[in-house]
């Protein structure tokens, strides 16, 4: 409140009555330059409840008016500045100034060997010699985070040289660790440093890898997963795709794959069973109105899930074009954060890398994820006990069992199958 250089003190709106939070300035009785005595009336304040004359809390010269007549200010807000006379020394008794802060680095007792219960427990769990850990708390005390940082960092140091930290290095590590706030603690202490052989290679964890790890861990630890697989006859779908492939490439400059056809079938089925497009919150299940499908696009190192927004409003051709754009941008690393956000259901074309069946982890906090597996030409029994060579493919669904059960998912999957098998040469893709 007190500016030492200028010796100006703020006069604030006092608390006038129960449950009043602001007051309106009625009239100034003093003007800048006037000398006021303590308790002399400065101005009039009006409120819903009372109108009062505001006495000056101090003696001095009124320097500046901060709230003009007719303006309203909150209780505690300054309304004018008063310069107190020279002789009067400013009273700065700020209880928030703590002795501890001021004496932070002076006269600190050495606390480097005083361990908290949490530190002792962690040291035991990870078999750590605490004498090797540098403490960053008051008096050099080792805290929980120091130990966790040490465990984490244990992966990165040369096994030949015993961990003897330079202060500088440790600071960097500690700072880096502090920032990685989203990584749950359980994950950090998964692997003790000692389980590494001398010839084993160490692969540093990239930020993307860490993010995937966090997400997957969250998914598997929070969502009770259940699985369902169906097989669909996609022969007609393949024929339809073959029919359009060249024309599409010529017209749009894009390779038409089976994915947009499958995606369309899935999205149509979601429209029939909107509960698949939902999310679990503590007391409710939130069924999302808009269908934004996350598409898993993998590379050698990682997988990203950009989103096709309002997928239900797009044609097969529209989906194909948008998919192509997402894949291209994913490969060239040009996806933005907003491309990745807002997904309500995930589709993964695992067939692209030859999988026949998978048990995908749900893209948290969605309710389900579906995969489309490799199309296999094989003999199957068709109507009237005939055997034919058909193009068959599995679709696998992982579901959040808190929200969904087998029956509704069974219906959903059957609907996906129906839509897939309903394609024919006449199906319009635009």
């Amino acid at each position, binding site marked *: 409140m007190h500016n030492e250089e200028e010796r100006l003190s703020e006069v604030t709106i006092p608390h006038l009555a*129960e449950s009043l939070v602001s007051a309106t300035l009625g009239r100034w009785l003093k003007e800048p330059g006037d000398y006021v005595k303590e308790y002399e009336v400065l101005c009039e304040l009006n409120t819903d409840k009372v109108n009062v004359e505001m006495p000056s809390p101090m003696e001095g010269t009124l320097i500046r008016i901060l709230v003009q007549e007719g303006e309203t200010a909150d209780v505690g807000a300054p309304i004018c500045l008063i310069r107190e006379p020279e002789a009067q020394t400013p009273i700065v008794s700020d209880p*928030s100034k703590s002795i501890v802060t001021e004496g932070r680095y002076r006269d600190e007792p050495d606390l480097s060997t005083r361990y908290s219960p*949490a530190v002792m427990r962690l040291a035991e769990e990870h078999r750590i010699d605490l004498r090797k850990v540098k403490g960053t708390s*008051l008096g050099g005390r080792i805290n929980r985070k120091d130990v966790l940082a040490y465990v984490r960092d244990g992966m990165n140091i040369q096994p030949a040289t015993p961990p003897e930290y330079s202060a500088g290095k440790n600071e960097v590590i500690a700072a880096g660790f502090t920032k990685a706030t989203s990584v749950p603690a359980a994950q950090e202490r998964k692997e003790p440093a000692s389980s590494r052989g001398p010839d084993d290679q160490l692969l540093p964890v990239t930020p993307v890898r860490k993010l995937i790890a966090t997400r997957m861990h969250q998914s598997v630890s929070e969502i009770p997963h259940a699985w369902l697989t169906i097989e669909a006859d996609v022969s007609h779908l393949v024929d339809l795709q073959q029919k359009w492939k060249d024309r599409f490439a010529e017209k749009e400059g894009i390779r038409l794959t089976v994915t947009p056809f499958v995606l369309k079938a899935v999205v149509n089925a979601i429209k029939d069973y909107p509960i698949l497009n939902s999310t679990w919150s503590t007391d409710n299940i939130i069924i999302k109105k808009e269908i934004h499908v996350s598409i898993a696009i993998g590379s050698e190192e990682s997988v990203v899930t950009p989103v096709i927004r309002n997928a239900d409003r797009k044609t097969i051709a529209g989906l194909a074009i948008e998919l192509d754009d997402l894949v291209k941008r994913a490969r060239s690393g040009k996806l933005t954060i907003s491309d990745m956000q807002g997904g309500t259901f995930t589709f993964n074309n695992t067939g692209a890398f030859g999988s026949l069946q998978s048990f995908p982890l749900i893209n948290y906090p969605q309710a389900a994820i579906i995969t489309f597996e490799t199309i296999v030409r094989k003999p199957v029994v068709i109507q009237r006990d005939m055997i034919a060579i058909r193009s068959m493919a599995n679709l696998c669904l992982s579901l959040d069992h808190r929200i969904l059960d087998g029956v509704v998912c069974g219906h959903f999957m059957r609907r996906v199958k129906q839509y897939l098998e309903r394609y024919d040469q006449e199906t319009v893709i635009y």
Partner: protein
Amino acid sequence: MAILTYLEAIRAGMSEEMQRDEGVFVLGEDVGKGGVLNATKGMRDRFGERRVLDTPLSESAIVGVAIGAAMVGMRPIAEIQFADFIFPATNQIISEAAKIRYRSNNDWFCPIVIRVPYGATGGGGLYHSQCPESVFFGTPGLKIVAPSTAYDAKGLLKASVRDDDPVLYFEHKKCYLYISDDVPDEDYTVPIGKAAVKREGDDITVIAYGMAVHLALKAAEQLEKEGISVHVLDLRTLHPLDQSAIFEATAKTGRILIVHEDNKTGGIGAEIAAIIAEHLLYQLDAPILRFCPPDVPAVGMAPTLEKFFLPNVDTLKEAMRRLAEM
């Protein structure tokens, strides 16, 4: 969804419950003309004087009448004008309301809500600022809630009315007009006995209720700029305490600061500290700290005494920083 003040949310909660259930009524000093704090404003016009019942200046009678009405199947909401005046009713609350279910071997129960406007707003002095929750805390048979947001204020009020046992509903007077947030128009309740994480952080945990939650959130926001990450747990219900939420919040950081406006000795913080020490010693990375007013009889009338007594964002922030560095 509308933005309501904490005070409006309480009024909306009462009105909706009265609308829903004929057996719900309010009684208290001057409630007919709206109460001195405006909580029941306009309710007599809407529900009539038999359901918005003015009482004599006798808190023991207010609670006594409420208990009697509850015995014949009604669901009264008794207003104590200021928490400071609740003590004449203490016998009715602790010896009667809290014990009816037990004493009658579960034949009778006592569904009353006692609204208790508590806490300092500034300038209230000794008899308009007190926080008497620790007097009732630890009385088996009583439930105690203390919301910090308008959403919780309405949801907990409704839950309290529908609860079959006596609930002390502590409403912080400073929150009345100071706090407003989104409150759904449709019917909802906030479960009694459930705390809420108000902010995620991993350096220190602050456990608070009522106005102190807002001080903690503000301080946490400022400390974030210094690189201190603060986890804030709003208890919402004081009795029974949400132990699992307290354990989770403790395990998150291992550094606990409990803050309330009630005196330090024998306050809610003392019990929380004991629970943590009993169950989670090996998660602790620093001593459990409490930040509460000193053991002085009450908030002084003089602004200097008031400032000395009450926690504020600056002093709380300092305590939080000290814990983070410890």
